């Protein structure tokens, strides 16, 4: 049974699909290289070679099928009084962080994200388990939202607990 919550308004940056694809491929390829080298060097385990091929194929399938799907499921929005996200395809999660309860707003960028011009927006509340993360925003957009949120939260008095 689906959860009757409305999806957040905004999709992620389309480039996030390429980033996910690279992720889907990077680990299988790395694994395949290790298996392949071992298979070539050590005779008795030459059957590692077809296994390596299979791993690459699985990675390719994942990279083709999933990012488009994830892209449809992962959504976010900043309303007048909250940051609202939905994430996860199998293990789904809906989160909202009211602006009045936000403590910090950060953007983080890994090397791969930088290559794609992406940023992740991390919004923390006073709860140790309440952080809201939006992965895969255009990095200028993310910085602009972070600044807007920071200004909005500074306007609220108290320590947001």
């Amino acid at each position, binding site marked *: *049974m689906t959860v009757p*919550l409305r999806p957040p308004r905004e999709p992620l940056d389309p480039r996030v699909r390429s980033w996910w694809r690279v992720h889907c491929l990077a680990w299988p390829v790395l694994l395949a290289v290790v298996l392949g080298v071992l298979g070539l060097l050590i005779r008795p385990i030459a059957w590692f070679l077809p296994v390596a091929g299979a791993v690459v194929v699985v990675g390719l399938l994942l990279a083709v099928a999933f990012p488009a799907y994830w892209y449809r499921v992962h959504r976010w929005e900043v309303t007048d009084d909250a940051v*609202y996200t939905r994430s996860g395809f*199998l293990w789904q999660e809906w989160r909202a962080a009211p602006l009045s*309860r936000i403590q910090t707003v950060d953007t983080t960028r890994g090397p791969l994200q930088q290559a794609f011009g992406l940023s992740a927006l991390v919004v923390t509340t*006073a*709860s*140790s388990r*309440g952080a809201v993360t939006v992965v895969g925003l255009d990095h200028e957009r993310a910085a602009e939202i972070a600044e807007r949120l920071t200004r909005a939260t500074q306007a609220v008095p108290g320590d947001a607990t």
Partner: protein
Amino acid sequence: MTAPADGWRQLDRRTVVASAALALGACVAAGVPTLMGMRSADRFSFTVAVGLAVGGTVLVVGLAVVLEYVRLARTRFRVGTDRVEVRSGILVRTCRGLARERVRTVEVTADPVLRLLGLASVRIGTGQRTSATDKPLELRALRRPDAEALRGLLLDREGRIDPPHPREGTPHEAGAGGSSPHDDGAPRDATLAVLDPTWVRFAPVSLLTPTLGIAAFGVLLQGADWIGLQQTVLTDAADVAIALGLVVSLVVGLVVVVVVGTVASVAVFVESWWGYRLTRERRTGSLHVRRGLLTTRSTTVEEDRLRGVAVVEPPGIAWFRAARVDAVATGLSAADEQRSDPRGLLPVAPRAVVERVVAEVLREPVAPTREVTLRAHPVAARRRRVRWALMICLVPAVALAVVAVLVGSTAFAVLTAVAAVLGLAAGVRLGRLAYRNLGHGLVGDYVVTRHGAPGRRTVALRRGGILTWTLTQTPFQRRAGLVTLWFTTAAGDGRYGVFDVGVDEAMAFAVETLGERFSPYLAAASMTP
């Protein structure tokens, strides 16, 4: 204690003695067993070993004294009007400070050595872990009255602005950082609960009992090893076991584990809860827990940091109609850095006491955990729980079956069958219990959630203390039409869940609890109530 004009104060010099005693104790604990183990060696090497041990002890204790002396000489602290500051460091000087308004908890502890010297350590916590500099400040050690005065001073918000005048008949000490508004046993504290010695009967009903009982065997063997008798002990035990037969020796072993474990868990209870007293300071409303026999602990929770309470029933305790009460408060969440769990407001006590204490702590006429009518969860949640419980309870049977197949003996096949039957029965029972223990409800200003098996936990969370919500759904939950609704909070575990609740009920409950904070996210189709 006099203070220099600039307000910087020093720790108490007798801390050196305490550290020296601790170092000596460690040396003795390490050296004596080693020497005992060397008794069989020849005279010369034994003499050399004794010499080395004594020399090493002198060196270590001397080093401890010097280091501690320098540390004390280099450590200063000051309680200013806005900030608490500590300067310390032998080579690298650090100056750490906390804004006084951010101080959430002050813990006064004293291990036996400090207590003998009339000293106590003070830990000042902010309760927030947003950065590495938020570690609690620790002052080891101050004279006990100074430590208590410091605690009172730091947690006395009004006293900071306008120090109260000494009242007639109240012993008043002019402390360095201002007047001391806090006196032990002063009539302004309302006592909510004191230790009832009969509560010790609940102490053995704990996982601690078998753990300590079995650990005792390990300690015994280790001790025998030190004095070179491990082999003897093992052969003696084997002889006795053979003489008694399998069944009798199993029973004897079990009885020994239970008896030793019971004694040990009672000892642990007495050590941690001796002299327990829960009080509320009348003027500030802060809750104050004081307990401990050898190591005394004293924890203060400001009232506006309290978000609710958790009523915890460890496995088996429900049969005795008893439970423990923990505070759900900001600033008490990081149990990892604390030596003792600072959340405990009440040890395991009869339910009537629990309900009275919960009501008084929350200042409600009736405890929300009692008043609430918990709503049951869908039957699908029971199926999930029974399935999980069976998976766990059938592990021994599966393991035995594997052995039976590998070895091919009928004895193992019989054991497998027995384990399978027992596992099935236990799994079904445990799963059903877990389902019965599921519940959620709303009463007055509190959200109440309950879950767990074989023990269970009931959390009453003030609605105003809820920061926001999170909804999670696994593929299995989706198929069963279930969802888990989490309420996140700055206190305690960070979030408390309503597990495996029906999708529609979850929406309705979230709207009921959070109102405007949840309803904007509902899909238009389900907006009609």
